[in-house]
């Protein structure tokens, strides 16, 4: 498998149609659209159409144009600002710890000289990635409950003597960040490890001869060369983090109301649609979240330098 060992770059494409007639080109185009047609239909149905329909719902009320009134209603909702604040706090805690720890761990793992050990450590780091969605929260319900937790001594040491105490509102950003880190960080560590392997040994060797220690090498050579991957990780994680839903949702179900039903923005959008039957308000919140994701994504595709386009 060639793609296992190499991140492919786009091959040059210039002039391969030179000499063909316009007729042949048009025929080829038609055939190509038979290949991409079914996928394009799905792209329209589950990418573009939901977006357009959400825009329509967000700016209308009972089918009539409503200007920005749906947005104003959402902004005035007493639950809106707290939800923004919760998501913001969670993102801050999670992204900072993600960047610092993933880079630190990748650099350390990369420095392991023993091959089987390095492989094993990476395996241990990434395997929790299999436990995502509701099941990871389910597992963490046990871990956070001091009565059954395998790390009860740590929880008691932190002064948390019941599950309800462990998920108090002011601790929640940290708790959610820990869960997200547990499932997601390993994959990124493995990716950073791969990127570190791509740094030429000569550069590192030269720095070592010049007297640079491992910390200096990491700081001045390895981390700057990882920058693209770090920003890729931050952008994807930021966009994903704003969508926070399943974790607070399941915690709310388990914590007897300690974690509120409207903790995150997506939960609020969910309540608008399902409890208040207000699809327009729900669409307004969804649209704002979608735009954040869309802007980040477009900026990254065209500016990030990670995707070579032609």
């Amino acid at each position, binding site marked *: 498998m060639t793609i296992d060992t190499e991140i492919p770059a786009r091959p040059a494409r210039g002039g391969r149609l030179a000499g063909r007639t316009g007729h042949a080109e048009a025929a080829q185009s038609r055939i190509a659209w038979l290949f991409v047609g079914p996928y394009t239909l799905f792209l329209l149905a589950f990418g573009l159409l939901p977006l357009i329909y959400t825009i329509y719902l967000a700016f209308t009320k009972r089918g009539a144009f409503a200007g920005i009134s749906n947005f104003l209603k959402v902004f005035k909702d007493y639950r809106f600002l707290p939800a923004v604040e919760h998501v913001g706090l969670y993102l801050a805690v999670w992204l900072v710890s993600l960047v610092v720890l993933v880079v630190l761990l990748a650099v350390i793992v990369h420095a392991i000289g023993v091959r089987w050990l390095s492989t094993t450590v990476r395996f241990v780091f990434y395997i929790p990635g299999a436990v995502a969605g509701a099941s990871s929260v389910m597992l963490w319900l046990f871990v956070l409950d001091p009565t059954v937790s395998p790390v009860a001594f740590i929880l008691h040491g932190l002064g948390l003597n019941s599950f309800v105490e462990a998920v108090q509102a002011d601790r929640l950003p940290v708790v959610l960040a820990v869960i997200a880190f547990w499932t997601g960080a390993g994959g990124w560590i493995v990716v950073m490890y791969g*990127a570190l392997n791509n740094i030429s040994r000569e550069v590192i060797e030269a720095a070592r001869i010049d007297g640079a220690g491992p910390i200096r090498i990491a700081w001045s050579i390895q981390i700057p060369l990882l920058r693209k991957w770090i920003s890729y990780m931050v952008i994807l994680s930021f966009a994903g983090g704003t969508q926070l839903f399943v974790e607070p949702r399941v915690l709310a179900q388990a914590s007897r109301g300690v974690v509120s039903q409207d903790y995150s923005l997506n939960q609020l959008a969910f309540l608008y649609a399902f409890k208040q039957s207000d699809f327009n308000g729900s669409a307004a919140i969804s649209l704002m979240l*979608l735009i954040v994701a869309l802007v980040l994504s477009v900026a990254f595709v065209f500016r990030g330098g990670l995707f070579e386009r032609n």
Partner: protein
Amino acid sequence: MSGTDHGRRNRDAAPPSPGSWLGRVLATLVLTAFALFFIVPLAWLLLAPTKTDRELLLDPPFSIGTLSTLVDNWTSLLAFQRGLLWVWLANSAFYCLAALAITLAISIPAGYALALIEFRGRKTLLAVTLVVMLIPSTALVLPIFLELSAVRLIGNPLAAILPFSFFPFGVYLTYIYFSTAISRDLLDAARIDGANEFQVFLKVAMPLATPVIALVGFFSFTSNWNNYFLPYVTLPGRKSPIQVGLAELLSNVPAFNPTNAASTTISLSALALATLIAVAPVLIVFMFAQRFLVTGMTAGGTKG
């Protein structure tokens, strides 16, 4: 990516100074702490279903229970609402496998054409695919729900299968794969021999496509199996897949919901067993797929 691994082994051969010795100890400590952080919850989950609730509360967390307790927990899960757990699991399998089949059927030809056929609209389609691929799938859940409820598909299995089948990442992986794995000259040679575009695709490209089919299949299956938000809003009740069902079970655990007066209750250790069963398929796939994971997460990136 593993290519440069070989030469690194001996680079620390020089005897360590006291400073670097301290560094090594620190690094080892950090590494051990995090290895424990990642593995302890999983190890606990593997052992918990073999214990009774009483043993969960009183015994050391990593003690091993008995096989008969495991069987008891299994039986009590089976009994829950006359086998509802199996309905959920079967739903998950049905939705994920149906979506997998559709995803492969539409993504492989699309990625192939994007990589190897020049056509009008190619660049636009590629750029849109990239942008949509980077948008978290959760961002589209409520919009898709609103759309599906407008066409009255909520509660229909298609409400999970169709959105699950839209997998731009799979198209992108296929595109990357065919861009590098097959030379255009080979395709042109086949064309000159009189093969039409479909024969070229079936006879030349498809026999080489096994690795990318496995790769797309891995990502499609694991992400759909673990998806909670979308089926939670589009497929309520008995139509739910296991992830949604698992959260549903939670309401029947008295330890978490003492006010619940449901006639059938679930013990903590049975809930742990249900969690383990829910993650088992993906866990097994993951055991053998580290390479897939790395390839997928780095696909499309040029070298850092």
